[in-house]
């Protein structure tokens, strides 16, 4: 039986559908990331779970009890906010102690728990400091300790790392996951950073226009995107529009080039499909004539060094491709080289091609932006 359930949640703001019937079922101790671009409804969903807002329809169930209309102060949800939310008039210890005081815990009990939690987040030495004496990362650690102090039923994190610099972000996300696993606490994490979501979650739900497009394990989300939006949003994906020419052998036609894609087997001849190929699955070689089977020919127009791999942009007949190749190999394919890109028949993913316009992914505001 799921521990946290969001059942058919709807929330409108005027004419905007912020949530359009989302469904989530999360087991006890599991970590779910709500991932999506700005305005997709992920923070609205989190605020409904926290009780700061009420749904227009649907319900929220925690441990079998409907909490949809329970006030936030009675929900037992620990929350870490995107903005620094420590009480400025209290020290780090007093911030962590606040929820325990509200619950009427004894002084000795409170002090013991505060000490344990500050140690847990690596700030045992900073209990006497006020928020303005702590760095952003330290403040978010205290905020995490404060949220955990009340032993919440669900831990809610609303883009807690977005205001921090890259190095601290990576460090802190790993700590959040370590602590979550150590305490076995059910966690709902909102982020627009796919790397963050994929690296620390048990499950990822990609949201778009108030709906959950797909929910699954990070590996599933990456390797088997169920919709064009998820394919576009998670990682980098080459999109090739094609028409099935032979369903039995999985042959499709892409701009006059015939490709074999196993996923196209059993499709009807004439079906319009979208062939999705990850950049790292393309095999590049200097072109020799028109290339072999399952290949596209094009010219390398840019190279972007990414460390162990180099990203090549290839402009070819009918399609622009992105390919990631080992950096050592990229040196043999300089800009201007004509190359053949071989598609893996096995690894390519296939989706139905609809007349819907290509999804737009709005840019996320930076940490300093309003």
């Amino acid at each position, binding site marked *: 039986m799921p521990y946290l359930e969001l059942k058919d949640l709807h929330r409108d703001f005027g004419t905007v559908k912020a949530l359009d019937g989302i469904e989530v079922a999360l087991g006890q101790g599991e970590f779910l990331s709500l991932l999506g671009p700005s305005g997709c409804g992920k923070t609205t969903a989190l605020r409904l779970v*926290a*009780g*700061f807002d009420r749904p227009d329809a649907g319900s929220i169930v925690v441990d079998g009890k409907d909490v949809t209309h329970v*006030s*936030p*102060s*009675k*929900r*037992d*949800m*620990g*929350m870490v*906010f995107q*903005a*620094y*939310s*420590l*009480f*400025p*008039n209290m020290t780090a210890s007093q911030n962590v102690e*606040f*929820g325990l005081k*509200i*619950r009427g815990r004894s002084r000795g009990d409170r002090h013991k728990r505060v000490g344990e939690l500050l140690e847990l987040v690596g700030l045992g030495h900073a209990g006497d400091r*006020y*928020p*303005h004496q702590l760095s952003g990362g330290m403040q978010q650690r205290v*905020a995490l300790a*404060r*949220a955990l*102090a*009340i032993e919440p039923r669900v831990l*809610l994190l609303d883009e807690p790392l977005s205001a921090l610099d890259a190095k601290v972000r990576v460090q802190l996300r790993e700590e959040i996951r370590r602590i979550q696993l150590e305490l076995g606490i059910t966690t709902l994490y909102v982020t627009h950073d796919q790397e963050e979501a994929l690296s620390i979650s048990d499950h990822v739900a990609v949201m778009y226009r108030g709906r959950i497009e797909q929910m699954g394990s990070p590996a599933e989300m990456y390797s088997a995107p169920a919709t064009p939006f998820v394919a576009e949003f998670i990682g980098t994906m080459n999109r090739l529009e094609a028409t099935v020419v032979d369903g039995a052998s999985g042959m499709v036609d892409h701009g006059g080039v015939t490709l074999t894609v196993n996923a196209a087997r059993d499709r009807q001849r004439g079906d319009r499909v979208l062939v999705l190929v990850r950049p790292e699955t393309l095999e590049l070689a200097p072109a020799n004539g028109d290339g072999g089977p399952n290949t596209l020919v094009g010219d390398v127009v840019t190279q972007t060094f990414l460390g162990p791999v180099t990203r090549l942009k290839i402009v070819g007949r009918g399609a622009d491709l992105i390919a990631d190749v080992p950096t050592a190999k990229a040196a043999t394919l300089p800009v201007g080289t004509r190359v053949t890109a071989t598609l893996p028949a096995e690894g390519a993913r296939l989706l139905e091609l609809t007349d819907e316009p290509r999804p737009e992914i709005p840019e996320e505001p930076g940490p300093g932006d309003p």
Partner: protein
Amino acid sequence: MSRRRIAPSAFVWLLLAAAYFLVPLIATFLFSLRSNQTGKCCTLHAYGWVFHNGQFWQTLRLSAELALETIVISLAIFVPTVYWVHLKVPRLRVVIGFLALIPFVVPPIVLVVGLLNLYKGTPSWFYAQPWGFLATAYVILAFPYMFFSLDAGFRAIDVHTLTEASQSLGASWPTTLLRVVVPNIRTAALAGSFLALAIVMGEFTIASLAAFKTFPIELEYVNETQAYPAAAATLLSFGITWAAMLSLLFIGRKRGQRAPFLAGAR
């Protein structure tokens, strides 16, 4: 970090500003030292007269009590109101800001005539008593000062996040207000309180027209009848008002903590 040096021209301006405030005080002080009989310097006779004048202390106490009452009522009304407006109906800020300007625009004489008519039918324990009618009028007079001070204080903190953080930890609305919000707008509340104190201690028109004998009324009476003691009383009241403001400041401060007004400003 090297200390910034003050430019010589800044000293000139500082001296001019200090002279602007200090010269009248020094002149008043020298005047207050003159003898009532001979008009010559220097005697403390005027101060002795003030100290032994029961009316001086009685009216000073009444004005101080009225100031305290005004501050308490204003804070009790405006802190939750401004909090609620910032949290739930931020659009109303403009409307309340406009209303807060009315006591500035309406002359005190119009205000007092209007209030006297409005409260004419009320019980005498309210209408005829300074802590009823007069305190009500002073709360209205203090409204703009209190509102704009509190508004600035609330704008300097992230009211939404602090409130939601407090509630998610199990705090009720009153607990959130008293233990999270109020300590973080303390400087703003103190600023509003200073201004309310200063207004009430110096308010003359309403008290005079409503026939209440407050400290400014007494001061004006002494000024008409006893020139040198009036100067002494002015200086003493000035000192007492400043002492009251400083004590408010010390009450409002807490050791080891940066002013929350600044701490919340991000």
